[in-house]
């Protein structure tokens, strides 16, 4: 029999062992009888000669080599039995641990997906990005905050750089995919030929775009992402070779990328990838920053060498791509651009920039919560260990080794840790999915690869084991260190309990109170900060505003028909019954920005520029302070006029009357220098974001005078009807004009709220964790006070017998709580003052050391703490003195 079958055939082994030893005793007995003893004597003598039967059995089991497994199994069985006997304790322990571990694993999963994990490509560590050092400083037009270079700059880099072995360019874009008469948006990727080969992406089907394709001809082939291939083509091989109509180009599907490849932008998956297309005027534009350029370091090259080479190439590259139509000061900015090389192995992500600090902070918060959960468990275990002191003493006295006792307590806590870890892993999935849902914005799919990979498992495992060691070993050592005699004698017989007996527990509770105060202060800071942001008045109407983006590009109208067509369309929208007011504008609040250099009355500067139709101010309910609104007499042919913001007046005109003053704008491509006469002043509105202190100077001009009009328009619609109904009515009306007009609708309020996602997430999560921490601290405090009360039962009984009133008893116990609370709150306030400054960049409208917040959190904590300790104190005061004295 081998080791394993011996373990399994345990019962048979036991039978055999018994029979073997019985046989021995029987034979010895016979021999003794033969030597002349009576039967009774003979049996006794045989037993005496043999020695301790049970001990021999145990030694035989050990000799079989399965003893440790058997005793472990016994330990675990025993642990399960003990835990089942106190279901409340077990439930609280596993739940707190599960919540702590689950929250940690979830935040870690998110942090890992957004920040830590390398791109799913070959050798991500040698992947680098080429960028303009310090960004383009607002020069030209930027498509999103991740677009860093123009196409002409990319061509120059490709031609001249030598320090990188392969370079490629890519850009994210939304493409219109036509299916019959329907057009829908898909997430697209522009790529240069070397992208897939350089990244080492192996096609799942067909082939990928490669270096031979590297001539920007349009309409060649399209590569699908694995997910898109599955959803759109059902994962059929026949997809290869079929045609897709993308942006009116019929493209042949040539291949599919592998399942794990999501592109280079973390948090944004792609559906289709195509080559740069030469018909696109963006390939020649020198003022449009829309590309990312990446490459690989040469085998022995370093980041520093590559960066130095590109820096030295910069003047030549810049000279060869100098944009036209800009003022000389703007061109000076361009002339000073220097290229640099940065590591790119983790890909790029706007998520990362937005959520880096928040996620780090959240991980810190959840770490503290887990720590508190552990402290709580340590406390619970200590209290249990103390009440089981007599049991332990009895076991020691009966000959159990200290090691056995430690093992037994340890297996109890390991079992709890294991239960907590399993629950935590289950909760982690739920938590992280809800988190992603929380971060999801309208029309912007958040695609994070949130797999429970080995790192999350390892993280959770380590947390669980550490937890177990922390809270399991301390009580185990403590309870096994005592002298059995002393423990048996004192037991719960002591009249009063010495204070040093639970000093460790007190310390734990004090630190729990301190940490939970810190978490409450953090929660309050984030919640108030979010409220402050929600209460900010942006200067325009937020609710009841619908924005309709209308694209008439597929009507293929001649350029000169754009403006009349758009004017008619606006009229149509205005005629919808639910629409109370409608206007167009070239800028949607908090989305993008258009800045122009201006000269006013001799002072130079810059101003935001927005072109709006008449009735824009009425629609958005921005009050005009002086002057007139635009009207239909402001046409492309009439003199150029402008309405400026208060901030504009303050910046450029001071106290002089602005009406009739002249604004001269600096030239830019498509926007030649122009002269505007100021005809009105509008109240300030927030321009880029709600957090803006004073808005930048802003100028409005009539949309009829917009020099760069295209086949698209943004219509702002105000209505007091439900916006979903308005959307349907407008959609119907516009489709009635022409069914080929592409439409997209956004609710302004929702968009603004989406802009506060991070703040909302921080407020929600920190409030949740703050409450959890407070709850944990309460449980801890309740446990300790109950324990103290139990230990002092006799003393309380004597006091009551000697005439103390229930009130006296409650007071006596609450005084103890107050000492703990005072120390904990003092520690918590100190801790908060020292650490919350790290969160100040995430706060709005209040300081990190806001006294009101500190006081509020402390007051709340003190109130609940007093309730938590009043319950056991009250129970203690009800103790019948006689019963307490007789007890034990």
């Amino acid at each position, binding site marked *: 029999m081998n080791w394993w079958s011996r373990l399994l055939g345990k019962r048979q082994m036991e039978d055999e062992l018994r029979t*073997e*030893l019985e*046989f021995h005793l*029987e034979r*010895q007995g*016979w021999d003794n009888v033969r030597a002349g003893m009576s039967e009774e004597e003979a049996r006794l003598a045989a037993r005496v000669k*043999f020695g301790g039967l049970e001990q021999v059995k145990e030694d035989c089991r050990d000799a079989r080599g399965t003893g440790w497994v058997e005793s472990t199994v016994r330990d675990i069985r025993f642990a399960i039995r003990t835990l089942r006997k106190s279901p409340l304790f077990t439930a609280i322990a596993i739940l707190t641990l599960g919540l702590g571990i689950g929250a940690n694993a979830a935040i870690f999963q998110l942090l890992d997906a957004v920040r830590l994990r390398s791109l799913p490509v070959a050798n991500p560590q040698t992947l680098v990005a080429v960028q303009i050092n310090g960004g383009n400083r607002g020069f030209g037009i930027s498509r999103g905050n991740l677009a860093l270079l123009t196409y002409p700059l990319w061509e120059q880099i490709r031609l001249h750089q030598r320090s990188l072995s392969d370079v490629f360019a890519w850009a994210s874009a939304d493409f219109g995919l036509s299916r019959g008469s329907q057009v829908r948006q898909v997430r697209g990727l522009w790529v240069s030929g070397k992208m897939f080969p350089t990244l080492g992406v192996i096609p799942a089907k067909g082939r990928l775009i490669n270096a031979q394709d590297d001539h920007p001809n349009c309409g060649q082939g399209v590569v699908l992402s694995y997910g898109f291939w599955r959803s759109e083509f059902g994962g059929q091989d026949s997809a290869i070779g079929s045609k897709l109509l993308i942006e009116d180009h019929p493209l042949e599907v040539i291949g599919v990328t592998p399942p794990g490849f999501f592109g280079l932008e973390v948090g944004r998956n792609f559906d289709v990838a195509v080559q740069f297309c030469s018909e696109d005027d963006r390939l020649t534009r020198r003022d449009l920053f829309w590309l990312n350029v990446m490459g690989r370091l040469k085998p022995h090259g370093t980041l520093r060498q590559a960066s130095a080479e590109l820096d030295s190439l910069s003047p030549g590259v810049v000279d060869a791509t100098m944009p036209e139509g800009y003022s000389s000061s703007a061109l000076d900015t361009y002339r000073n651009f220097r290229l640099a090389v940065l590591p790119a192995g983790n890909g790029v992500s706007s998520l990362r920039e937005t959520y880096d600090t928040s996620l780090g902070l959240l991980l810190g918060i959840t770490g503290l919560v887990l720590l508190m959960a552990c402290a709580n468990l340590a406390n619970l275990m200590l209290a249990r260990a103390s009440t089981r002191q007599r049991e332990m003493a009895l076991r020691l006295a009966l000959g159990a080794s200290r090691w056995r006792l430690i093992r037994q307590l340890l297996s109890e806590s390991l079992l709890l840790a294991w239960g907590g870890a399993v629950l935590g892993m289950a909760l982690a999935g739920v938590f992280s999915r809800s988190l992603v849902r929380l971060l999801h914005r309208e029309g912007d799919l958040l695609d994070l690869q949130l797999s429970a990979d080995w790192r999350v498992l390892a993280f959770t495992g380590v947390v669980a084991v550490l937890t177990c060691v922390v809270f399991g070993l301390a009580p185990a050592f403590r309870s096994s260190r005592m002298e059995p005699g002393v423990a048996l004698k004192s037991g719960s017989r002591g009249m009063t309990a010495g204070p040093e007996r639970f000093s460790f527990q007190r310390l734990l509770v004090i630190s729990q109170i301190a940490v939970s105060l810190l978490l409450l202060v953090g929660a309050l800071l984030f919640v108030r900060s979010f409220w402050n942001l929600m209460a900010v008045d942006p200067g325009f109407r937020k609710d009841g505003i619908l924005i309709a983006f209308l694209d008439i590009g597929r009507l293929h109208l001649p350029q000169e028909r754009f403006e009349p067509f758009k004017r008619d369309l606006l009229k149509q929208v205005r005629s919808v019954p639910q629409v109370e007011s409608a206007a167009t504008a070239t800028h949607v609040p908090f989305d993008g920005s258009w800045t122009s250099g201006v000269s006013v009355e001799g002072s130079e500067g810059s101003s935001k520029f927005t072109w709006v139709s008449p009735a824009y101010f009425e629609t958005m309910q921005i009050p005009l302070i002086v002057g007139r609104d635009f009207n239909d007499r402001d046409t492309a042919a009439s003199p150029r006029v402008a309405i400026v913001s208060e901030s504009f007046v303050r910046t450029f005109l001071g106290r002089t009357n602005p009406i009739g003053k002249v604004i001269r704008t600096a030239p830019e491509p498509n926007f030649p220098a122009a002269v505007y006469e100021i005809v009105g002043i509008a109240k300030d509105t927030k321009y880029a974001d709600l957090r803006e202190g004073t808005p930048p100077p802003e100028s409005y001009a009539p949309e009829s005078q917009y020099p760069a009009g295209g086949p698209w328009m943004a219509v702002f619609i105000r209505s007091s009807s439900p916006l979903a109904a308005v959307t349907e009515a407008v959609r119907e009306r516009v489709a009635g004009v022409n069914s080929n007009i592409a439409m997209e609708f956004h609710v302004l309020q929702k968009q603004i709220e989406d802009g506060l996602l991070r703040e909302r997430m921080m407020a929600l999560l920190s409030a949740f964790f703050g409450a959890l921490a407070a709850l944990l601290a309460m449980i801890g405090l309740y446990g300790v006070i109950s324990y103290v009360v139990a230990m002092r039962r006799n003393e309380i009984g004597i006091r009551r017998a000697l005439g103390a009133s229930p009130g006296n008893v409650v007071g006596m116990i609450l005084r103890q709580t107050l000492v703990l609370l005072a120390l904990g709150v003092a520690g918590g306030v100190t801790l908060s003052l020292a650490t919350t400054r790290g969160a100040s960049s995430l706060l709005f409208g209040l300081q990190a050391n806001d006294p009101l917040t500190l006081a509020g959190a402390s007051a709340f904590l003190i109130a609940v703490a007093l309730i938590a300790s009043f319950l056991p104190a009250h129970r203690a005061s009800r103790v019948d003195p006689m019963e307490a004295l007789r007890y034990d």
Partner: protein
Amino acid sequence: MDSQKSDIPQGTLDLLILKVAALGPIHGYAIAQRLQQISRDVLQVQQGSLYPALHRLENKKFLAAEWKLSETGREAKFYQLTAKGRRQLDSETKSWNRLTEAIGLVLELSQGDAS
């Protein structure tokens, strides 16, 4: 009489068991009796400690066990030396002989010195 009995030296019980089992299949009680008889009652074997040793040797595959009818008509567990056990017995016997020889030499030598 008690003073003439000796506890067996540490670690030699295994060697003695192997030697006794080498004579043919034998059960635990008989091994205990045999050890006592052969050593003319000088060696004091704690009977209880015999069984863990038997199980250990079986575990190491030096002994093979089999349930057979004993001379009294009851089933008993009989132990028998395996090929592996025989090799072990040989090497243990040799090293025991070397050890006792060496110890004997040292004792004789020091006696010589003392005289």
